[in-house]
């Protein structure tokens, strides 16, 4: 067993565009579920709309990269409004069903062959990050070509540019959520999570607050999809329901009702993923695990599922959650 390369690959999981994308999406779920109590099982749909909004507006309409990203964000706002206006009056568990269905509708619209010339159908889209006319995301890369960093954190100039961009977006999102949740607005949102009728009886427009929370969390999800897409091609196979559950795992790992929890949760999730995807096939090759290497690499998803179950049973408030919350979990 090559422990050196396992360690190297595991540490690399700390900072990748995917980790940042997960952190952003988990932050969106923290807004939805952790603070506002909205059970959103369709975060993958918000991510898909962000990513596709960016890719399609660059490829089909020839927008510059930043405008394309804004289109992706705008798309998620519209998606949140369409989803929220009829469903936010529903009880929590019905909202969960509606969101999971809406995310699937979004994914299937990107997958169907009816719009192949725009969405690329099952093949997805590519070539939007670098444009021949110089309007692409990588064309604006200020970092000179070369390799940077050390050890497991060695990146070429393209990845480094995505990371830099992603970290800035993440920092802005974290600040935004923190600033909102310490304000009276955040107090109303947390009140709605606890009992919306009580908040309504105090003269607050609960529906408007829930819609605002849905839009903000959805925008964070879309930004996650955009960072993810800025690093690679886009394909509908990524935005499946299991992506939603991986993000839920990241969120619950860190703590649903915290600001930094989702970020740290996403990092821990990807470090563990990187570790397992390296160590399990190695174990299989060296005969310690009685399975084939292919089976071994899918075994990690089984472990994620078990981990998620253990987490919600034994530590529902997450790593960074308030200990007192555990005492009073409903």
């Amino acid at each position, binding site marked *: 067993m090559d422990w050196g390369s396992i360690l190297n690959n595991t540490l690399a999981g700390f900072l990748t565009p995917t980790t940042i994308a997960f952190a952003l999406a988990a932050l969106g779920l923290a807004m939805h579920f952790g603070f506002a109590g909205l059970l959103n099982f369709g975060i993958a749909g918000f991510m898909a709309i962000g990513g596709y909004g960016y890719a399609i507006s660059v490829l089909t309409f020839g927008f510059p990269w930043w405008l394309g990203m804004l289109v992706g964000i705008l798309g998620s706002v519209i998606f949140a409004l369409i989803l929220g206006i009829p469903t936010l009056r529903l009880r929590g568990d019905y909202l969960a069903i509606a969101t999971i269905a809406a995310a699937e509708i979004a994914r299937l619209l990107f997958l169907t062959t009816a719009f192949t010339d725009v969405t690329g159908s099952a093949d997805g889209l590519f070539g939007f990050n670098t444009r021949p006319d110089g309007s692409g995301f990588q064309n604006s890369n200020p970092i000179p070509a070369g390799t940077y960093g050390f050890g497991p954190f060695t990146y070429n100039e393209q990845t480094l540019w995505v990371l830099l961009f992603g970290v800035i977006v993440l920092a802005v999102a974290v600040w935004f959520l923190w600033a*909102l949740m310490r304000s009276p607005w955040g*107090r109303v949102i947390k009140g709605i999570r606890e009992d919306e009728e009580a908040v*309504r009886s105090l003269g607050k427009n609960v529906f408007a607050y829930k819609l605002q929370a849905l839009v903000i969390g959805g925008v964070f999800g879309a930004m996650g999809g955009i960072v993810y897409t800025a690093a690679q091609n886009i394909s509908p196979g990524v935005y499946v329901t299991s992506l939603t559950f991986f993000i839920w795992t990241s969120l619950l790992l860190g703590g649903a009702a915290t600001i930094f929890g989702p970020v740290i949760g996403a990092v821990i999730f990807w470090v563990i993923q990187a570790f397992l995807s390296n160590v399990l096939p190695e174990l299989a090759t060296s005969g310690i695990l009685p399975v084939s290497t292919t089976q071994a690499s899918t075994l990690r998803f089984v472990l994620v599922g078990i981990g998620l179950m253990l987490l919600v049973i034994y530590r529902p408030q997450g790593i960074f959650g308030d200990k007192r919350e555990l005492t009073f979990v409903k």
Partner: protein
Amino acid sequence: MSSSKKPQKTTDIHIGDAVPGCKKKDPMVVIDHVKKSFGGLTAVDVEHLEIPSGVITALIGPNGAGKTTLFNLLTGFDTPDTGNWSFMGTSLSGVPSFKVAQMGQVRTFQLTKALSLLTVTDNMKLGAKGQNGESIFRALFPGFWKKQDEEIEAKAMELLKRFKLDAKKDDFAASLSGGQRKLLEMARALMTDPTLVMLDEPMAGVNPALTQSLLDHVISLKEDGMTVLFVEHDMHMVRHIADWVVVMAEGQVVAEGPPETVMKEQAVIDAYLGAHQETDLGEVTGRINIIKGEGK
């Protein structure tokens, strides 16, 4: 139990005879032809009812009489099939509940709704109206709301002291006892600076030690110029603090008047307070033999 101050009852509230639907000298809420059915069951069917201003009105009646439903209709938590009703001259038909609350009509709930995972202080501060920081754009910059928030906090502390919850201010509301939650809910309602306070069974599940202080709080609401409408099953409390009593049964108002007179009406006693109100519970169930004439 001895109250230091004897509650000052308000009299001379109505015009003409104290019959169901009688006119009041200074009505705050006027209800006309309000009807609400759930399937085949008519929960509320009120021809005409006026809730007087500046006094404490009790709404009593047996279980299923439609008291809570009437509460829900008045506060916009439910919509009636027909009818209209007004609050201080403004029609409330079709007005959503949060706007009703903004107009100064605040309610509490039969099953207390404390916001469990918010601290007691945050529960209180949530009640304050017209907060700048509750708009999403201003919320981002504390300059817009910091000063106002401090004022709200000071007001919350004052109320918490009055309700003897100040020692609990940093605890989660979930850690409060049932009675303390009732107090918190009432205190939180007062944060909205209401003109009409509607209490749905404020005494339900409260231990006798807290009852007296809750009673005093309700009376002090009136002294502070607020109008109170409450639903209650405890007849002693109703007699003690209410200036006016409205009796409901099967969705209709069947009697109203000052507590002393209404509770003496034989029909009201028999049908709505129970014919055995003065008898010992043991005698009613027949499980304990009561020796007559003992003690008195």
